[in-house]
């Protein structure tokens, strides 16, 4: 039995993470506290460092990633805003790395209660420039544990920074979890082989490696961006993940992620008991978004309802996916308020 935040810490050590750099912020400070408690520097040699700010944290991640290491940070909404410069730079330098956002209510200092209002920031880009993050949305403590290794694996495979987009509910709740097995940290040889582009110290056998996002020649810069976009298209084509619950014969579809999906699942059961054929589609990758499967359901269902802890963010991507074929409604709570299943049941009934 672990808290979601604790599971992240255990999973980080087990997946062979080289370094965690972070700053305390509610509701995710347990991630760093658990790491400090577990003392992985004594067992795996993992570096765990409390930085002086989120700005410093994300730049420590950049530095570590630049040398081919498996590094990560975590924060919550206001702290993740501080990290946007670093995230943009990491995308511009095509560095593999992992950030965890345990969302809280905003904007601004907001509240310490849960929210899903950083969807736009995560998926459309809170940093400057043309980039995408691979965004994973866990809805359980098990997924918090599983997505650390998954995030790193995808990030290294495509050289695209990954983000675990969680919220205060999942970070704080306790559930049974099976932790992943231990994986060793990269050796120097492995780093040279699997990240030959990294700045790990130039041996005589190759020319210098420079990790940079800067390119002053516009023609070359456009080529870099085109190549990056092509890589992102491959991710979109191959790495979409989602979960379908009672969707096969559904007349109505609820689309939700994270804790909103857990609550919506209960709402689906209540509605089914009343004879209303509702299904739940739960995106697991928010980017790449499960556009195709939603478009497929747009041919079959009468309408869709997104349930989000925000003013209406993912609903825009659902509308893009259905492309006008069916009505798409949104039900949201803000300010850290978490809806109960009955509210969702009522919201869906309104659109019948």
């Amino acid at each position: 039995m672990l808290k979601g935040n604790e599971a992240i810490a255990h999973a980080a050590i087990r997946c062979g993470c080289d370094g965690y750099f972070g700053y305390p912020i509610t509701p995710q400070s347990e991630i760093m506290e658990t790491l400090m408690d577990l003392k992985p520097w004594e067992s795996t040699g993992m570096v765990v460092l409390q930085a002086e700010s989120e700005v410093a944290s994300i730049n420590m991640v950049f530095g570590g990633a630049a040398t081919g290491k498996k590094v990560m940070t975590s924060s919550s909404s206001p702290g993740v805003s501080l990290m946007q410069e670093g995230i943009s730079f990491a995308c511009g330098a095509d560095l593999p790395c992992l950030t965890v956002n345990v969302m809280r209510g905003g904007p601004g200092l907001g509240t310490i209660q849960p929210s899903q209002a950083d969807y736009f920031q995560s998926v459309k880009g809170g940093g400057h420039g043309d980039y995408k993050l691979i965004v994973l949305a866990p809805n359980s403590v098990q997924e918090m544990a599983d997505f650390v290794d998954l995030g790193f694996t995808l990030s290294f495979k495509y050289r695209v920074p990954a983000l675990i987009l969680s919220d205060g509910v999942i970070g704080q709740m306790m559930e049974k979890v099976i932790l992943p097995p231990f994986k060793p940290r990269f050796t120097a040889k492995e780093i040279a082989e699997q990240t030959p582009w990294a700045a790990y110290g130039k041996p005589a056998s190759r020319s210098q490696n420079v990790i940079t996002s800067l390119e002053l020649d516009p023609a070359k810069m456009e080529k870099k961006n085109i190549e990056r976009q092509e890589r992102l298209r491959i991710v979109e084509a191959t790495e979409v993940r989602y979960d379908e619950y009672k969707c096969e014969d559904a007349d109505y579809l609820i689309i939700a992620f994270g804790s909103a999906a857990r609550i919506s699942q209960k709402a689906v059961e209540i509605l089914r008991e009343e004879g209303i054929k509702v299904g739940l589609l739960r995106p697991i990758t928010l980017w790449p978004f499960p556009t195709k499967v939603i478009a497929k359901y747009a041919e079959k269902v009468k309408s869709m309802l997104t349930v989000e802890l925000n003013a209406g963010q993912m609903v825009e991507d659902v509308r893009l996916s259905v492309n006008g074929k069916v009505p798409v409604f949104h039900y949201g709570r803000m300010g850290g308020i978490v809806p109960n299943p009955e509210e969702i049941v009522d919201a869906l009934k309104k659109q019948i």
Partner: protein
Amino acid sequence: MSNSIINPQNLVYQKSSLILDNTMHYCPGCSHSTVHRIVAEVIEEMNMQEKTIGVAPVGCAVFIYNYIDVDFSESAHGRAPALATAIKRLNPDHLVFTYQGDGDLAAIGTGETIHACNRGENIAIIFINNGIYGMTGGQMAPTTLVGMKSSTCPNGRDVELNGYPLNITPLLAQLEGTCYVTRQSVHTANNVKKTKKAIRKAFENSMANKGTSVVEVVSTCNSGWKMTPVQANTWMEENMFPAYPLGDLKDK
């Protein structure tokens, strides 16, 4: 550059093999080219070229990696000490240094600078202080002197409006985490020698895990200052040195 035609006993000087053959973009008279050359020589003399990772700044020296043949990472403006912190902790047997201007180190990066020094990270920070922002066209820096003109204080730095020049180096010397803090210059041959000794000491300190070394090089920016290189050297001696006196502030 081949030295096969020169007998070793006749060789007076050759450029370090770590200086890449790219034409430097720096203005004639700029201190950067001299300091780059010193850094390259020290790395080569320490035989650390395969285990050095440099962190570049934002500023004229953003392209330092075009001139020194070791692995480099760029850094966002001011963040170099944070990158270097992680790089060194994750690669403890490597030589890790940052190379930063006055805006990088003492304006936007003040927090990262102070905290890396406070933690005593085993890195060397090379701080090029010329009291102006060269790359962006000559704006005021935190180290711009009172009365000194720049594009954002065209009537001269005014204490009421802009505060005093930030003398950050003594602050860093006060932190327990720093082991060596010194101010040097490269405007005469003798000072070039001293700066090279200082950078060598800074690099050796970091490999001996003694903490953070800061080598400030009080420098000229004849373009930003709107002077000839020779005038700039003189102006530096007469104005910058009294505000930023040369010498060791700390040497543990």
